[in-house]
């Protein structure tokens, strides 16, 4: 092991293994996770050449190969628990997407929730056995967020008892579904249903798209890959165009809505339940934000303790770049953020499971808040993690730009989560809608509960900034609980400001929609402040659950750093609301720098605790043993440009030119 890294590890003040248990949710779960990862690591069939050296087609093929094997092995090992499946899958695909994601994550679950029993008989088992591979085709080239705007049509023909599917315009071509381009032979297609001359809105249909046996597109189907993207090389995101393509009546998913043989339309009972799936997927993205940022921090912090550069003290050897204050200032707040998001992700998962229990018993009361909270937190964490990964890459100087660092890959794989499953700005505005609703409720004298209950404190006060401001000086910058209060005040002030601005626009006789649009910048700020408060609160709550004193001490520092750094980046909000004084803000800046120095000796141990295997990390710079330079050289020698000693372009272009000139 590199001697710098060894020294860092020897001097840690706590046992990282204990922290790993905390992150995994217990020692037993850590053990089981490692056991499952070992099943992948020890199986040579899951190993392959570095994906950075392969073309897109080759990467796709590698991914398909591993996915097919994965399904076989999952059943062979009897791995069925969702967490365990996730560990197995992310170990095999090393955190990257794979072509069966939509089949496993959308096609099968949709069959389970929206297909009738007869339909499940026909489709589920073949799909379970991968004889059918399906995708979920909703987004169109010209339409994403606004589902009512989708243009694909399914027109019922009672004469033949078939639906006729059409993509009437270029903008209506299905675009982006994963696994659609090359892999799937079926798709669940969302289309506007027309029967008896009337549009009945969006419904889901099972559409065969490729010939079983030859895998050729069926007549009337145009399907293909949408081309190269920013990352997602393994995924065949596809397009689908349908021209008078007929499917039998019972290929419409009819558990809720129905079309009778004569074309009579039967309405569904309620659609609130679809909230559940969205909540689940978005809460997963929060966890993913934490994991991706953790990987990036692991790489950047290990590298920063191995890399030496310039001189701090004249005459001394070049110091580790981790000793520079500017480097610590880049990386440690991100490290704290990664931990914060871990706890938020865990909280959301628990809440989801708890509420799902309630829902099954018919209690939907908590769903709107949870839905609003997950939307905002999905946006808040993915935006922050996205910027953080990039910051980590920049902090590695030139070598961060090489794909051997693994950071470009983490970045391009993660970034799309700012857009998919709900574009982030749209998500923030959904949370804002809930906040404004709660605020209005409070203003009319009703109390609200849950994470927004702080709004109750505003009630009956006719809320003037000065009054909120009257409370401030109680903030103690070394007390996490006091900082939670500060964030709470900031959130209530910004929610209030947005609500008032909205009202002011309405008073100018703007329509509801217009006024909303004119206030949306304020509304997004309010949502961000709310989410920030929730994260600080959850991190602080987590501290009380840590028993080991050494771990508690280091986590307390991280929690303080997270909260204080956030304040230092938004001092305007805290000053303007009178939550903090000028003098306190100066103290905050100072305290942040002290915390950087306090965290410095434990930085490597803190990333070790994330417990990423080198294989999963996929980074020469972030290797556990820190032997980076010799391994960069080994890696580079395998580059495609080095396959021959003299590149063919020498003979084709250089040599002829030299003789010509």
């Amino acid at each position: 092991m590199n001697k710098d890294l060894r020294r860092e590890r020897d001097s840690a003040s706590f046992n990282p293994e204990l922290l790993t248990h905390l992150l995994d949710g217990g020692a037993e779960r850590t053990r089981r996770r490692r056991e499952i990862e070992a099943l992948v690591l020890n199986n040579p069939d899951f190993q392959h050449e570095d994906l950075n050296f392969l073309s897109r087609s080759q990467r796709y093929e590698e991914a398909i190969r591993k996915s097919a094997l994965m399904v076989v092995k999952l059943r062979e090992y009897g791995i069925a628990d969702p967490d365990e499946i996730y560990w197995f899958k992310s170990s095999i695909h090393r955190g990257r997407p794979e072509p069966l994601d939509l089949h496993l994550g959308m096609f099968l679950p949709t069959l389970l929730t929206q297909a009738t029993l007869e339909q499940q008989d026909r489709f589920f088992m073949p799909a379970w056995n991968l004889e059918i591979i399906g995708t979920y085709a909703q987004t169109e080239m010209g339409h994403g967020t606004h589902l009512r705007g989708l243009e694909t049509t399914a027109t019922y023909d009672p004469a033949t008892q078939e639906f006729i599917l059409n993509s009437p315009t270029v903008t209506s071509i299905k675009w982006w579904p994963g696994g659609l381009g090359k892999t799937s032979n079926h798709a669940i297609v969302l289309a506007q249903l027309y029967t008896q001359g009337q549009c009945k809105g969006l419904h889901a249909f099972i559409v065969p798209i490729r010939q079983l046996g030859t895998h050729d597109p069926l007549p009337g189907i145009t399907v293909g890959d949408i081309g190269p993207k920013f990352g997602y090389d393994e995924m065949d995101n596809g397009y689908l165009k349908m021209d008078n393509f007929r499917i039998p009546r019972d290929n419409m998913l009819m558990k809720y809505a129905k079309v009778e043989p004569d074309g009579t339309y039967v309405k569904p009972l309620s659609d609130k339940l679809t909230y559940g799936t969205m909540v689940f997927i978005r809460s997963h993205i929060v966890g993913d934000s934490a994991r991706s940022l953790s990987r990036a921090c692991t790489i950047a912090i290990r590298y920063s303790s191995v890399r030496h550069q310039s001189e701090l003290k004249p005459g001394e050897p070049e110091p580790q770049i981790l000793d520079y204050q500017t480097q610590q200032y880049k990386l440690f707040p991100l490290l704290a953020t990664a931990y914060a998001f871990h706890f938020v992700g865990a909280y959301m998962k628990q809440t989801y499971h708890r509420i799902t229990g309630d829902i099954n018993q018919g209690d939907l009361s908590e769903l709107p808040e949870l839905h609003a909270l997950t939307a905002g937190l999905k946006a808040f964490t993915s935006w922050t993690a996205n910027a953080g990964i990039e910051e980590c890459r920049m902090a590695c100087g030139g070598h961060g730009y090489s794909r051997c660092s693994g950071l470009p890959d983490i970045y391009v794989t993660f970034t799309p989560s700012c857009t998919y499953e709900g574009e982030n700005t749209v998500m923030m505005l959904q949370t804002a809608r809930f906040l404004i609703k709660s605020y209005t409720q409070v203003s009319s004298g009703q109390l609200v509960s849950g994470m927004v209950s702080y709004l109750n404190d505003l009630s009956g006060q006719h809320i003037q900034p000065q009054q909120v401001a009257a409370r401030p000086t109680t903030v103690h910058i070394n007390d996490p609980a006091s900082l939670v209060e500060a964030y709470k005040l900031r959130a209530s002030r910004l929610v209030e400001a947005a609500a008032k601005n909205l009202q002011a626009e309405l008073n100018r006789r703007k329509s509801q929609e217009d006024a909303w649009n004119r206030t949306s910048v304020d509304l997004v700020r309010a949502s961000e402040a709310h989410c920030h408060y929730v994260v600080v609160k959850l991190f602080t709550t987590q501290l009380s659950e840590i028993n080991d004193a050494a771990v508690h001490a280091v986590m307390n520092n991280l929690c303080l750093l997270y909260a204080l750094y956030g304040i230092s980046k938004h001092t305007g909000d805290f000053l303007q609301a009178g939550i903090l004084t000028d003098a306190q803000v100066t103290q905050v800046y100072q305290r942040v720098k002290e915390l950087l120095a306090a965290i410095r000796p434990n930085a490597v141990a803190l990333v070790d605790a994330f417990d990423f295997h080198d294989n999963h990390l996929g980074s020469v710079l972030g290797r556990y043993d820190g032997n980076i330079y010799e391994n960069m050289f080994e890696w580079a020698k395998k580059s495609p440009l080095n396959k021959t000693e003299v590149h063919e372009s020498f003979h084709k272009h250089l040599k002829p030119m030299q003789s010509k000139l």
Partner: protein
Amino acid sequence: MPMHSPAMLQCLGCKHYQGFQQSQMAQWNRSGYFRSSGSRDVNPDLEAERQTASFSVERLTTILDGGADNTRTRRAVEAVIHSDPGFSRENQYFQSQNERYEEAVRKAVLLKEKMHQMGWTEDGPETKYCYRALGGDLAFNVHRVFKNSILALGTDEQIAKWIPLADEYHIIGTYAQTELGHGTFLRGLETTAVFDISTQEFTLNTPKISAMKWWPGDMGRSATHAVVFAQLYIKGKCYGLHAFILQIRSLRDHSPAPGVIVGDIGPKMNFEHIDNGYLMLQNINIPRENMLSRFSQVLPDGTYVKRGSDQINYLTMIVTRVQMLWNEVIPMLLKACTIAIRYSAVRRQSKLNPGDPEAKILEYQTQQQKLLPLLATAYAFHFMNAYVNEFYNKGYTEIKQGNFDSLPELHALTSGLKAIITDYCTGGAEVCLRACGGHGYSALSGLPFLYTKLPASCTYEGENTVLFLQTARFLVKCLATVHSGQPIPPSAAYLSSVDSGKCQAWTKMDFLKPDIYAEAYRHRATRLLGNAATKLQTLVQSGAEQYEAWNKCTVQLVQAAKAHCYYIVVKNFIDTVEKLRNEAEIQKIVKHLCDLFALHGIFSNTGDFLHDGYMSGDQMDMVTASYLDLLAVIRNDAVPLVDAFDFTDENLNSALGSYDGHVYQRLYEWAQKSPTNQQVSQAYASYLKPLFQSALSKL
């Protein structure tokens, strides 16, 4: 300090006015899907935007180009380049690293022929427009750095020997400075050159793996020669870093020279067309004449002679930064804005009012708030060019006369501007990418290419944090000068002025007065620098060593340097608006952009201005109100404002950003050409078919 510029730029191959811009898509033109600007059939949504422009787009274009003559020349050059299918970039996004490299070599050769044929010389006005038209798709950019380093550091004899060979491409050179383990800190480089009096030769060695040269562009596969930086040893004594010319590949069969291990460093985030390389030297002997000896020489008896000042080399570094900013970096932000804003005027999503059709996403305040401040930033940065040139020309004249007084200021100014501009352009391109929803992630939008290319600029030619600290060091010195009552360099002269300590605005309209916001920025810059300097002094007085105190203040010093640079940009934007007094319509819209740039900067950093009570909470609410009002005003001219950048469709190479706005058709047609749709994949036959077979009988 470096004898030459800090190093990654040459490595990545985008040095100098080699800011080779985009190239073309002639094949597409033939297929009819990629029409150039000015074609008739335009998406009505874009047409409507253009009809309501408040100013003449053509007039603004000529202002941006620095005169109608320049616009004419540029368009003529673009026409020549775009009409040659050999420069097409249609397939660029589909190509592998190997293919990209080969294309870049082919195009570099083709361009050389084309320029010769057109009678364009390398120092003629057409050159930079060729680069704009071609984009980054050319090899041999570092070859030019190789030549420049010989011109700067070589004796007349050395120049006479090597430059003609290099001019004719009889040799291809690279510039090998950065090592695997060493970048910013040049004294830490480990490659050695030991002089042997008995043979009159230098022996070059890579003593360990971290000393391997790493990153130089054109080195991995192309170069035959290299200028190598190594620590010079004579009779056991180290004389520091010097430059040596050596041959690394055979001129006959291109195989590596004996003792040379050379290759490509592997895939990167972008720059796949450049063969960034590694180089290991094992007892390579070169004659004494191969040390570049303009400023220092080793005599046959081993005597080391130093002559003249090599300060002139700082100038090279400064020129490099300046050219890279305006020819490479800033245009990428301009392109990203063009793509995202045109797309936002064509894309419709959700409804603003029930009953209306879906609204253009550009109507949404949140979309305006993402894109319009970037548009203002693009203009702000573009206008800095004139300011920096003026500064540079004045300094250059003085330096030529042997007066180096203005060098530190020029260096500090360009360092800070390089850092702030590359930071903002990189961040901006990503905002543009994400503002285009899902389609932004398609390589065919052109945005992933811009986004992955830009961040390299935050590292090469000086890592940004290091550069901000260099600016800060200069400012701290200036502040000391202020206190001693001596004259201060012009760019920092404001440090000596006194302000009232309170913002003088009473209404939101007051925040549209340049004096008001300029003063606010000046106050912030002065305050942050003052705080950092005081802290530094306190630490030193309390017994900390200078270096230790400096490290403890670096976070604050970086903030101070950023505030300084931001002030300079705002101030120059204000001055630019004033100079447009004879262009009423244009002055009006540019003034709006200036206001937006300034107010957005305050809105995004409210704490900096509220701290110490310079602004009150009420004033901050006025800033926000004015800022949001401006978004709605500029929105009306957003498309004309990007049209004025006058990028051809071939330049943009984007399905979303083309002039005619037919985004969906283009996206669909282009995607079908993807190799994933053109080539047979084994995935189905090998892995999927066996799975599907058993379904046949059941369905």
